[in-house]
Structures are given as structure tokens and as C-alpha cells.
């Protein structure tokens, strides 16, 4: 890579009191180059634009200034902090003749990896973490859209994941603009672009973000593309005109309940066929809503709030197969079989809350939105977590993550306190009184299958 900014040098920028040290180049994309930099002992990232990009995108500087003033919708965005132009003294150190600028943003911590690592199957990650990442993505776009903004260039390349927790970070926030207001240069990334944008019939905005968001969620959940089925197999050379047909002129969802022209191929598209049945009906229905009716009717696409709700509920349904240990997410009630090994799933203990229910499986969590109908779904601050007994993993407990003690009530009416950080065994309990609200413990009505 030919770096525009000199690695190892200290540069002065207008408006920055201290010099900025360019530690090293991190990567280059279509718009610019990104560097790790140090400012007064703090590590940050600096994106420096290519002159061609600045020339093409007249609104770039104005958008960046507006974003910097508005501040990030939530902490999952690597949001611009400051716009930088070299001082006259440092100008000659920049290795291009044309005038250019850049912006500072937080540096992605090393534990976060590009989402394409997951899409390409190189990342060890669990289903719970993938669902949490999907929730984080819906939550971030929810905050962005509620602020009246749109993102315009949703793609795998702009998302980072922390595989241990499923936390996310979103980069490349320089196309963000007030929805419908700014005609920026970017149209999106083919494969993620809404059909109306790909065909040049609409400018990218919040409605097309909803399409792109659904594509990205689908790819994270299935490691497959929602439009690549039989119709893709019929294409010999997958070039630009072919993509335009497949994703713009005649796009058909591979699991469209009515139009079966684009079903996945059992061998070529095995990923989709294996992973899709893992997810509960209501979550599948949001994809159908977006990729069937919403394909040509942008206003019918599933909204960020719907995604948040269904993804959070899917996580609440998580249970582990006793036979193979794999995670399952099917709706409770009807007897179900493990998607992975086919063993019957036991009917689990369920925690009933004022606003929803959570299956008792290790690592499942209770949050404020389970107790308060007005609280939006938020997975950042769990109030309680299901834990397995260290000696006997079949025995489940609930750990108090709140700041005040709980009162746990047994079936015979006795009660005992559960201090913050302590866990109580669910087996003997009927109910827990917590500061957030009551937690009722519902036991299975049918016996668990013999193992």
C-alpha cells in the first residue's frame, strides 16, 4: 500500500492543539485510507480521503461537520470526532499534491473483527453471539433512524464483531445524512442495495437502509445471501448486468412462501437450508415481510423496532439441547426437536415477567424491558443471568445482577434474600421479588424426555 500520510511522523492539523502522530496505516478502501494515530497519549483512527473522492462528493465536508456536531446515535458507531486539515507547516509531508482532508474517529479495539470473517466461516462464534450482534445492529440503526438520519451504505465491510460477546461496531459513517435531505454521492454496495436504488429509481434513505439491514441480518444469521438461489445458479458469469437482474429487475427471496422460482440448491446453497430452520417463525416472518411485499414497496419493510423486538424475543427463547448441547430457539409450547441432532427438546423452566418470558438456559438474561412495557429492548445492562451450577450443570440458578437484594420465595412459602452477585437455585423457587418487579418461576408441565 502506498500511504498518503507518512507513518511514524508527527503532523500538525488546524484546530488541534497538539501534534498527531501517525502510528501506521490500517487499510485503504474506495474512499480513503485509515491510519492508527496518537493524540496526547490517546489512540484514535484517522481516515484520510483520496482527492477523487472529495472531488466527486461535494457534500462530504458539510455532512461530516453536521455529524460531528450531532454526535453518535449510540456507542456502537465509530463516529467522526473532528474534521482535520493539515497546517501549512505539515502540508508538504502529505504525499499528494491535491488538497485533501480527513476525520478522527475512535479506534476499533483489536478484539473486534470484520463481519466478513463470520460470513466466510472463519470465525468461531456461537449462535447466541450472532443473534446478539444482530440485535446490536438493529438497535444501532434504530437509534440512527430515530435521530432522523440514514446510513446509506450498509454492508458486511462496514461492520465489526467481537465474537466473545456479540458486541458490534459500525464504521464508515461518513455517508450518514438527514433522511431525504442530502444527495450524497454514495448509492450503497451491490448485494445490499435496495432494488429501487440499484435500478436508479430512488436515492438511498431510511427505507433503503431497512432493506440493506435485512440483507445484512440475513447474511449474519445464515451465512448466505437472501437472493442467491436457483436463479443465481442459472447465471454463468456473475457480472454487473447479471447482478442487476438478480438484485434489481427480478429479485426473488430464496424462501418466498409464494414464489418458488429461486429456492436454494441443496448442494450449492446448503448454508441457507441448514441455518434458516434454526430461527423461530416470527423472526422468519420479518424477512418475508421485507423481501416479499417489501421488495418493491419500501414502506412495507420491517422496521428497526420490529427487528429489535423479535431478535430480543428469539434470545429469550434460547434453550440448550440435552443430547448435543446445541442452542435452539423454537417457540415454547409444542414439543420440538433439536435442529442439529433431532433429539426431542425438554420443556424448560420459564421465567415469567410482567412483560414477556425468558427460558431458563445458561447465559440467558433478564433486562429492564422484561419488567417495563415502556422500556425499549436493551441488552446492555442485564438485571439477572441464568447460571449453571458449577458441579451439576443441569441445576440452574439465577444470579442477581441488580444493586439491591432480592427476596426468593420457595413453594412452601418461605423466603430468603439473594444479595447482589449471589445466585439462587431455581429448582425450589416459586417466585422472586426483585426491585425491578416479580419473577415467577414456571416449571415444565410435561416431564423432560429420558436421556
Amino acid at each position: 500500500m502506498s500511504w498518503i500520510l507518512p507513518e511514524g511522523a508527527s503532523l500538525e492539523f488546524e484546530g488541534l492543539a497538539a501534534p498527531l502522530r501517525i502510528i501506521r496505516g490500517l487499510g485503504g478502501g474506495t474512499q480513503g485510507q485509515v491510519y492508527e494515530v496518537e493524540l496526547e497519549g490517546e489512540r484514535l483512527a484517522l481516515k484520510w480521503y483520496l482527492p477523487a473522492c472529495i472531488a466527486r462528493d461535494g457534500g462530504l465536508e458539510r455532512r461530516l461537520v453536521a455529524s460531528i456536531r450531532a454526535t453518535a446515535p449510540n456507542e456502537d458507531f465509530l463516529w467522526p470526532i473532528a474534521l482535520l486539515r493539515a497546517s501549512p507547516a505539515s502540508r508538504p509531508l502529505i504525499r499528494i499534491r491535491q488538497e485533501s482532508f480527513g476525520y478522527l474517529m475512535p479506534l476499533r479495539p483489536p478484539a473486534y473483527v470484520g463481519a466478513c470473517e463470520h460470513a466466510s466461516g472463519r470465525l468461531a462464534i456461537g449462535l447466541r453471539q450472532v443473534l446478539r450482534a444482530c440485535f446490536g445492529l438493529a438497535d444501532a440503526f434504530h437509534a440512527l433512524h430515530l435521530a432522523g438520519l440514514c446510513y446509506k451504505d450498509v454492508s458486511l465491510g462496514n461492520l465489526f464483531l467481537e465474537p466473545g460477546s456479540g458486541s458490534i461496531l459500525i464504521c464508515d459513517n461518513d455517508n450518514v445524512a438527514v433522511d431525504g435531505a442530502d444527495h450524497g454521492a454514495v448509492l450503497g454496495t451491490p448485494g445490499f442495495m435496495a432494488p429501487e436504488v440499484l435500478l436508479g429509481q430512488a436515492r438511498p434513505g431510511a427505507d433503503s437502509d431497512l432493506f440493506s439491514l435485512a440483507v445484512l441480518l440475513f447474511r449474519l444469521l445464515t451465512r448466505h445471501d437472501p437472493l442467491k438461489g436457483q436463479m443465481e445458479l442459472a447465471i454463468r458469469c456473475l457480472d454487473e448486468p447479471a447482478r442487476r437482474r438478480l438484485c434489481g429487475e427480478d429479485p426473488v427471496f430464496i424462501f418466498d412462501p409464494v414464489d418458488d422460482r429461486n429456492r436454494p440448491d441443496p448442494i450449492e446453497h446448503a448454508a441457507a437450508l441448514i441455518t434458516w430452520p434454526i430461527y423461530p417463525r416470527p423472526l422468519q416472518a420479518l424477512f418475508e415481510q421485507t423481501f416479499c411485499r417489501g421488495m418493491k414497496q419500501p414502506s412495507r419493510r420491517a422496521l428497526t423496532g420490529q427487528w429489535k423486538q423479535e431478535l430480543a424475543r428469539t434470545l429469550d427463547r434460547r434453550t440448550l439441547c440435552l443430547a448435543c448441547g446445541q442452542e435452539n430457539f423454537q417457540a415454547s409450547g409444542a414439543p420440538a426437536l433439536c435442529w442439529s441432532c433431532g433429539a426431542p427438546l425438554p420443556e424448560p423452566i420459564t421465567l415469567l415477567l410482567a412483560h414477556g418470558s425468558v427460558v431458563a438456559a445458561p447465559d440467558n438474561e433478564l433486562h429492564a424491558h422484561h419488567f417495563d412495557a415502556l422500556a425499549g429492548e436493551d441488552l446492555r445492562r442485564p438485571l439477572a443471568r441464568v447460571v449453571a451450577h458449577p458441579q451439576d450443570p443441569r441445576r440452574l440458578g439465577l444470579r442477581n445482577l441488580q444493586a439491591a437484594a432480592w427476596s426468593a420465595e420457595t413453594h412452601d412459602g418461605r423466603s430468603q434474600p439473594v444479595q447482589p452477585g449471589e445466585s439462587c437455585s431455581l429448582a425450589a423457587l416459586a417466585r422472586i421479588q426483585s426491585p425491578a418487579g416479580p419473577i415467577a418461576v414456571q416449571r415444565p408441565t410435561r416431564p423432560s424426555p429420558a436421556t
Partner: protein
Amino acid sequence: MPFPDVKLANRPLHFLYLCDCSGSMAASGKMQALNQAIRQSLPGMAAVARDNPEARVLVRAVRFADHAAWHIETPTPVDQLEWRDLQAGGITAMGEALKLVAAALQTPPMEVRALPPVLVLISDGQPTDDFAAGLEALLRVPWAQKAVRLAIALGHDADLEVLQRFIGIEPATAGRSPRRPLQASNATSLAQYIQWASTAVVGAASMPASRVSETPLEPAAGNIPLPDLPPTVLDPTDDVGPLVW
């Protein structure tokens, strides 16, 4: 529990270098510069391949001098590629090289389904054999018609007209100048063009990058919109002036 062990369906992306190894390449270190440029570009190319799960990037190379021959015959995943140095010596059998590539792009051996191949022709002179027959044979093959064809002219003796015929003569479209052979007049610019072809162009042909409104969504010619050429980065070590071929 781990996410099920499934991988994104992918398609092969064949990348072929066609390298001029005629005697003139021995002058002024051109052959060494080309070997270096390709070797240096491989890590970046491997990174692009990693970032594009929809593509399986496979590299081959043809050398041509008195005759054309495979330098790397087996389509090789870029992360397994070791670049052995090309040696200069002989005349310029470019037409023969095109015929060799034409045969390789027939189905079979080409897969039925693939991404558009990328062909990069690098030359510092004029073909000494029947270039027209070679080009005709190449352009009869559907995969060659679909291919992204790039040409790099080394120095001032390169035959720009021949290279232009290889990449195709494209009518000027509104707002876009027609594609021309890339002219490398020193080792630095050669390295930049090789890097561009092996990263930005491979990226564009495999998993499309962000589009801006100026990129025509329906390109007039060529079935892959080509990315911007690299900016001219001033080389800080160039104080003595670059060696000009």
C-alpha cells in the same frame, strides 16, 4: 455452541498475468521491477481475497518470449502462491500467449459458473508473432469476452495500439474517458498499477464495493465498473528522480 459449520457459497475468480519476458525486459531492471511488483502485491491481494467470501481468487501466469508458456499453470489460491522470478530473453510471442490463455478459458477446463476473470497483460514492446490471430482466438471464447482485461505498458517502447486492442476499444461515454493502457514509466508506478489490478480490480470483480452516483450502474462497455486508479502518491525516496524506462 458454535454456529453451524456452513460457509458462504462462492465462485472462482480467475486472475491471469500475461508477462512479457522478451530480451528488452532485461534492460534497466524492468524484469526485476516486475518480479518485485508482483511479489509485493501478493499480501494485499490475499487480504482482498479474504475479505470477499463470495470469491475464490485463483491466480495463474503466462510468460512469453520466443514462445509462450505457463509460468504458473495450476489456478492457485493467492495465499498459497509463491512467485518465482521470471527471466528475460528472446523475442515477443504475445499472440501465442493469447492463444494459450484462450485455451485455458474454454469450458472445460473453466468452471460453468464463475466471476468475471481478470486478465492483466504487461509488455514493454511489440509483438513479434501474429498478435491479431491470437487476439481473435481469445475473443472468440465467452469467458474472455466477459473478462476484465487490463494492460500495463512498460516504458516508451511499448506498443500502445496493440495493448488498446487487447483491452478493447470502448466508445467514449458521457463523463467517462475511455479506458486506456496504463503507462508505467518507472518501478514505482508499475508497482502501483500491479497493486491496483490485484486488489481494487479483484475486489470490484468479486464482491462489489460501495457505489457512488458517478459510477454508471449500467456500464456502456465492460461488465465490471472499474475502481478509481490509485492517486499519484509522491514517493519520498524519489529525491534523485525515478529511473525512467
